[in-house]
């Protein structure tokens, strides 16, 4: 009896996921977008494609760390020649540096706008175009309505969107599937060798719809993410209950 009940609940959960915008990818399998430990945090244990990911960015150093992490993810999207659109109003990304993350910078189309409203309009139009592999947008404010519009656009086209929120005034609720925060970590070289090592980040998955948030230490080595250690975090709700 209990077994069947658990089965029913599992089945219902599976049915709910597509309704919430998580569709299993049928034709395009991108298995190793992020390391397996992070993948397990997502529903179906696969990186959500055809969804909008939100990155909280504070300061130029975090912008660099986030830029590197996003570039690492984009590389697996653009592996078979896909093009990406990068929409921004304050672009400081240095195109030649993206080669070190396995991206051909000439496959990225940069759109430089001045107005946040224009960025969101362009981003929505871009997310509707399934000729693109991914779309990156740099905005500071993203209202719930705007994020819903983006989410509806990607559900139709299955394009993946990344929103880098630079110095947001308020951390509001959005319809994005995940919310991340990437900060730099001190790099280490084997055997205490001198010099700066591979880029290493503290990857925080603050929010993920129907998944488990987490915190990991990730290094980018030879074109791949490498998981170093997991930092256990207790979700906020559980903390409240315990207290």
């Amino acid at each position, binding site marked *: 009896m209990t077994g069947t009940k658990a089965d029913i609940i599992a089945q219902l959960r599976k049915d709910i996921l597509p309704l919430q915008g998580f569709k299993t990818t049928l034709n395009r399998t991108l298995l190793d977008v992020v390391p397996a430990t992070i993948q397990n945090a997502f529903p179906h244990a696969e990186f959500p494609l055809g969804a909008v990911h939100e990155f909280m960015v504070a300061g*130029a150093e975090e912008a660099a760390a986030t830029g*590197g992490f996003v570039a690492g993810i984009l590389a697996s999207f653009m592996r078979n020649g896909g*093009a990406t659109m990068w929409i921004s109003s304050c672009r400081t990304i240095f195109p030649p540096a993206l080669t070190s993350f396995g991206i051909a910078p000439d496959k990225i189309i940069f759109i430089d706008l001045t107005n946040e409203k224009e960025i969101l309009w362009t981003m929505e139009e871009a997310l509707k175009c399934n000729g693109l592999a991914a779309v990156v947008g740099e905005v500071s404010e993203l209202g719930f309505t705007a994020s819903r519009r983006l989410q509806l656009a990607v559900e139709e086209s299955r394009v993946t969107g990344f929103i880098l929120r630079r110095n947001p005034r308020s951390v509001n609720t959005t319809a994005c599937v995940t919310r991340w925060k990437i900060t730099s970590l001190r790099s280490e070289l084997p055997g205490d060798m001198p010099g700066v090592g591979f880029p290493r980040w503290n990857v925080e998955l603050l929010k993920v719809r129907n998944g488990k948030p987490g915190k990991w230490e990730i290094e980018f080595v030879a074109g791949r993410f490498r998981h170093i250690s997991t930092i256990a975090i207790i979700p906020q709700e559980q903390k409240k209950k315990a207290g």
Partner: protein
Amino acid sequence: MPKRFISIWFRHIKTDWYSRRQPGLCNLPFILASPDHGRMLVTAANAEAQTQGAGTGMAVADARAIIPALQVIDDKPGLSTKLLKGIAEWCIRYTPVVAIDLPDGLMLEVTGCTHLWGSEKQYLAAIIKRLQHFGYDVRAAMADTIGTAWAIARFGKDTMIIESTQQNTALLPLPPAALRLEQGTIERLEKLGLRQVSNFIGLPRAALRRRFGTHLLQRLGQALGYEEEAIQPVQPMETYQERLPCLEPIITATGIEIALEQLLDVLCQRLQQEQKGLRAASFKGYRIDGKIEKIEIGTHRPSNNSRHLFKLFAIKIDSIEPAWGIELFTLEAVTVEDIVPLQEKLWDTDGGLDDIGLSELLDRIAGKIGPGKIHRYVPDEHYWPEHSFKAATSVNEKLPTAWKVDRPRPVQLLSRAIAIEVTAPIPDYPPMLFRYKGKVHKIIKADGPERIEQEWWLQQGQHRDYYCVEDEEGQRYWLFRSGHYDVDKTYQWFIHGFFA
């Protein structure tokens, strides 16, 4: 009403053209020659050369023997066709139906056109005068049938305008060659002593058919007007323009949209049939008060997708001010290019930058936010970081060189390096700490220096010694010192970028 035709015969079309281009050749004997079976044959000779004895089909060596001062010019294949086509298009000013009559003539159907010049005589004289003015030696004749006009233009003696239904009498004194017969038939007629059309025109048709075949009878019938003959008119270059007059003046945006949609559908259908696409288009509304409202669009690659083009125009429809109403809409494709038909994809791949959806998206963005906002970068052969990439001119521009990957470069690069205060051991060690935006960063690890010299042929100044440093929080920076360390001189440290 009987039809009227004019046949124009260019006696020396190719040589006349050369004389036009090089006026010095005018009074000299010259010929055009092309190689044939290992020798040079005369393909055209000008009037001067012909009077001195050189003719078409002669070997150039023979012609040279007759006329020692002969000039020989290489013939271009297809020249006369090209020239005739150009003249035919020019002749459309006289009549809409102009056909090329190879190898050396034009055929004009002038039914109902002559009265505009006063009379047939004045009309024909006007054409001949203009062509002679250009330097072409022409003969032209007018008749009811193509065959008779052709015959009179080439063999006619006195009158060049054959009155209506008089072709029978006009043909009688002409030689059989005037009937456009095959060479063999002409020779056979000659052998039998039939040297004029009048000699055999009265013979029984059955006898003529038996001896000379149906071709003679057909040509005879065509010249006399018993048999129909069609000509293939030259098509003038049509502009890609569509018009939509309105019964009632249009004042609403919806009305304008409907008009635009209809025009786009017609234009795109035509473009699709001709496998072309437009790169630039303008949509005009002619207002009642005489003003013209105009919106224009451009695309990144030729398109004949009416839905996409409509979206591009739709962004700009707001700027049309109908005032009292628009009574006529026109849509013109200003720039039209060939579309390479796309091959269906066998498997699902990312289209990359060649994707049609992507180029349509870029058109929409460019239409909405204006030009100069879309960038794509390709590598440039410079070590100086700010110069190591350049904006591509188009979405499809190929990479001039490969991207450099040998040196670490920061993900974020400041557009201008910012001066910082630094504590650094001398002379060439990385800094120990630096102050940036009021915060002191203690440096734990560092790589460098990487010296990048100024490109003296482009700009003057100090070289840069770059260091990649990491502070105690793990944040990575790209710092540089401008110039050498020197006790006497001041030198400055800068922050230029942030590593991931």
